[in-house]
């Protein structure tokens, strides 16, 4: 089946393979199956278009002057202008919102991982009375609709004096991400064989040392995937950021963008430039981490 005249696509080698085993497996697969069906490419191109057309249209609009947005309906602007970007970057609060979001999302990721990694480890490795009940309790909270508890959270925030602070956002996001992250990391820990811990314990290491020095480093791929998922969640949230924060200086991007709309009316050029500016950082995170996400998830999180 192998077509020797057509060398395998050069990017293959770099795309998928970890160790030698994976490489031979991939090579075997290629040899056996030959080239993918052309219909595969049709499907992939169609899906890519569906995915990026709204973004491309936004990008195109962001380079048009405000009057051109309503006359020039081409995908490539007849006249490029950077005026929209100048206004967004230097005369709006969008950079402030971006900084806030980076701070809150970063703190949330750190807090979530620190709290959840221990819980996940205990759930994966130890047997103790009340384990089933406590896991049930934690996982069931992901069924609580965020919208349902916004009013109570508002009261709690006001009573604790945390209303309109970064802290309340970090606390709420952390709590909301904990069930997902525990569940992902638990699956990941379960995929690490017990023999490693047994070996560590034979060598006389304590439970704590075995856990932090031997097992946690092995869980880095799973932690990375969980971290990205939590980060993107915070980056995109609107509800908490809009109800628990009132000071403009502490707004997050999703809310800031929406306010941009109400503040300036529908100015598509500026709005789409703002969208592009706010979407670029998160796209970078995603592109850099894409392989790790799939790899980290495949170990554990996909189990039922």
């Amino acid at each position: 089946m192998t077509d020797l005249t057509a060398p395998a696509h050069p990017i293959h080698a770099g795309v998928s393979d970890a160790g030698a085993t994976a490489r031979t497996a991939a090579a075997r697969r290629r040899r056996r199956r030959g080239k993918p069906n052309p219909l595969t490419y049709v499907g992939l191109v169609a899906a890519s278009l569906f995915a990026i057309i709204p973004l491309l249209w936004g990008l195109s609009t962001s380079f048009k002057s405000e009057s051109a947005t309503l006359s020039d309906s081409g995908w490539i602007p007849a006249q490029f202008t950077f005026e929209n970007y100048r206004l967004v970057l230097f005369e709006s609060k969008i950079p402030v919102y971006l900084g806030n979001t980076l701070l809150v999302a970063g703190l949330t990721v750190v807090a979530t991982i620190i709290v959840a990694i221990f819980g996940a480890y205990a759930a994966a490795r130890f047997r103790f009375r009340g384990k089933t009940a406590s896991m049930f309790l934690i996982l069931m909270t992901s069924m609580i609709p965020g919208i349902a508890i916004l009013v109570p959270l508002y009261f709690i925030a006001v009573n604790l004096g945390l209303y309109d602070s970064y802290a309340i956002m970090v606390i709420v996001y952390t709590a909301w991400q904990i069930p997902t992250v525990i569940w992902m990391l638990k699956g990941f820990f379960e995929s690490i064989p017990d023999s490693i811990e047994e070996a560590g314990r034979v060598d006389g290491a304590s439970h704590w040392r075995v856990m932090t020095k031997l097992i946690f480093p092995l869980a880095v791929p799973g932690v990375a995937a969980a971290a990205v998922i939590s980060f993107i969640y915070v980056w995109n949230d609107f509800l908490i950021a809009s109800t628990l924060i009132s000071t403009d200086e502490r707004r997050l991007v999703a809310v800031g963008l929406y306010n941009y709309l109400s503040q300036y009316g529908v100015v598509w050029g500026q709005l789409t430039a703002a969208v592009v500016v706010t979407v670029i950082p998160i796209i970078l995170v995603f592109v850099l981490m894409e392989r790790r996400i799939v790899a980290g998830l495949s170990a554990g999180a996909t189990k039922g």
Partner: protein
Amino acid sequence: MATVVHHPAETKRPPVRQTPPPPPAPPTPSSARRRKAAANAPAGLAWGLILPSIVVVAIVSIFPIAYAINLSLHETSYMQVGEFIGFENFLPIFTTGEGLGQIGLSLVYVIGSLLLAVPLSLGLANLLNQQVAFRRVFRVLILLPWVVSQTVAALLWKWLVNPDYGPLGLGELGGNRVDFLADPVLAMVLLIVVNVWISYPLATILCLASLQTIPEELKEAAEVDGAGPFRRFMQVTLPLMKPTLFVVAIQLTLLYFNMVTLVYTLTGGGPLGGTNLLSLGAFKESFEFFNLGLGAAYSVVLFAFNVIFGAAYIRLLRSDKS
């Protein structure tokens, strides 16, 4: 797993592909071993590790939902909680045409989105798992909407289907001006499409991750036995992916039922209440009209839907396993 390249831990972890597991039901042997290893763990340590998680979710999720349930049973006026009135706040939801309409629209929205998103994610994951040229590029492009927030998605799509200026706006069609946001049915269609657009990537990633855990040997064995691609998919891939598909279905269902931001920013519930979902009712009653009791009642109904659907999936998954 095969996709992590530079991580040193990767070499230490046993290559999953090499230890052919007893495929469909791996948990029994390993959990037996785990029980042995777990037996000598001090209970204090285990509790100490899990307690912080419990405390955080108790304060931020469990106490508030109890508070919301309590609130839904009381009379309220603005921020003041009045006397106990039983289920009176629930009457507008279950006895008026508007309330029942919201329940119906929510079901249309959730089920319609699921019927599109789940097969789409499954299909795309299978395409993206093949050895195609530019695979990395396709993956990044196709998964990209994941990082677009609901607010941004609403803005971009509104602009895209703008009847006068948007490239996907249909403008005049057969003498009628087609405006997606002015027709209740079209608005629901648009809402579902945009909803699928923002939610299929994460589902695809989960499916893709699950696909990569399926040992290639199994598919090859089926191929040797003469199974074509379709039969291989139906009889090897799909059964092994079932647990993941349930997880995906649960996550999407919860996400869709509770969706506020997208609905609020794309259609605002209109036109003519055509996209007025339960979740939006909860948000508007609480934060626009300050009927906290009624808003809490909507929330409790949503919560009930989440629990019912979640429990149903878990039951299906369990009965499937046994």
